[in-house]
């Protein structure tokens, strides 16, 4: 965490009664309203300002920069927000901060922690990272105008959980012969250069190398087919499925090729079967692992841009 990370030290006003829901415009100088997620619910009672948040969280749920998470209720929906300083989340500061992976990580983890807490208690529609409004009134307007969209999303994810499945090529089958130094300079199998036939130690080496590449290409294809089968089988069990892009090895920390980075929205009754399918596909070709349960991030993708009709993608 760097010194300009969203730590509580940079947030001038400590938690106070001012964190309670405000009935006015909700717009305060220097403060933005960070939206985490929308959940079903009613307006809190006046003597219980955080009553609109899921039971158990009460007023102690903290979000980005340590800000208290509070509800903004409207029409059977609750927007879960916290105040953030615009000297960090204003357009120009944000542009700078987004170049700083430590800052991004701090915000992402704080966002995720809030969403996790909410999703553990009730249906939750997470909002894309860094969605900031100038005041509570804007958030209320959002809930008014997009009520039906949110209701549709929440109905779809209610009672279901998202699971992630990542499948990697098994290293031991992937790299049977070559040394690490060869690996680095080796082109992908499909681009192996054409080498001359004939005698000589160089040609023999090239032939061996070609056979080795061909063998590994076969293994790769077999593993990729298994990954496709796995995704299809999981998709049949899931209410909905989606593929994320394979993760960059520099970020995943694993050098093996990722063949599947899937997300699946699963009914609880199918979770056991789901886990069994993943286990059955972890074999000598594939190393498949489950992540989650996740809040339904991957299945609440809806673009509520004002110039479009929206609609679930």
């Amino acid at each position: 965490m760097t010194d300009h990370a969203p730590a509580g030290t940079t947030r001038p006003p400590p938690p106070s009664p001012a964190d309670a829901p405000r009935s006015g415009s909700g717009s305060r100088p220097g403060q933005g309203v960070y939206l985490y997620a929308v959940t079903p619910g009613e307006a809190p009672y006046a003597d219980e300002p955080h009553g609109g948040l899921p039971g158990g969280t009460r007023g102690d749920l903290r979000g980005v920069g340590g800000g208290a998470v509070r509800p903004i209720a409207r029409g059977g929906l609750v927007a879960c927000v916290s105040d953030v300083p615009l000297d960090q989340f204003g357009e120009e500061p944000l542009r700078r901060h987004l170049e700083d992976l430590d800052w991004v990580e701090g915000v992402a983890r704080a966002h995720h922690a809030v969403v996790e807490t909410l999703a553990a208690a009730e249906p939750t529609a997470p909002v894309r990272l860094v969605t900031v409004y100038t005041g509570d009134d804007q958030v209320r307007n959002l809930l008014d105008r997009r009520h039906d969209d949110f209701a549709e999303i929440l109905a779809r994810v209610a009672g279901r959980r998202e699971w992630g499945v990542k499948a990697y090529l098994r290293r031991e089958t992937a790299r049977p012969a070559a040394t690490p130094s060869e690996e680095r300079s080796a082109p992908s199998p499909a681009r192996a250069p054409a080498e001359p036939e004939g005698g000589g130690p160089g040609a023999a080496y090239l032939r061996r190398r070609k056979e080795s590449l061909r063998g590994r290409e076969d293994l790769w294809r077999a593993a990729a087919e298994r990954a496709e089968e796995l995704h299809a089988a999981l998709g049949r069990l899931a209410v909905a499925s989606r593929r994320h892009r394979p993760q960059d090895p520099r970020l995943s920390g694993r050098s093996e090729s990722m063949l599947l980075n899937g997300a699946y929205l699963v009914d609880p009754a199918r979770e056991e079967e789901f886990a069994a399918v993943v286990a059955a596909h972890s074999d000598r070709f594939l190393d498949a692992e489950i992540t989650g349960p996740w809040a339904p991030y991957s299945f609440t993708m809806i673009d509520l841009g004002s110039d479009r009709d929206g609609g679930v993608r």
Partner: protein
Amino acid sequence: MTPDGLPPFTPERSPGRVLAAEGRLPPERVALVDILDRLLAGGVVIAGDIVLSIADIDLVRISLRALLGSVRGTEPFDPLGQPYAERREGEDDRYGW
């Protein structure tokens, strides 16, 4: 509140051994890359409603791409690109040996 919401995940309730083995990690132990997969390519996008343009996803996309491309290596990593299924053809070099 809706009492029919999902109860918190607990190992006792886990329906299968694999799921039980995975469990729910505390948020601070979840891999950042798994979080970013979801936070940058999932969730509700409300671009048109924000007065501040800071929720413009293009801004996040461009900045992160530049960040990860410059800091982590020469090849840009695009966490917000097209889903894998739409890009597989001709992408084999992503799986270099």
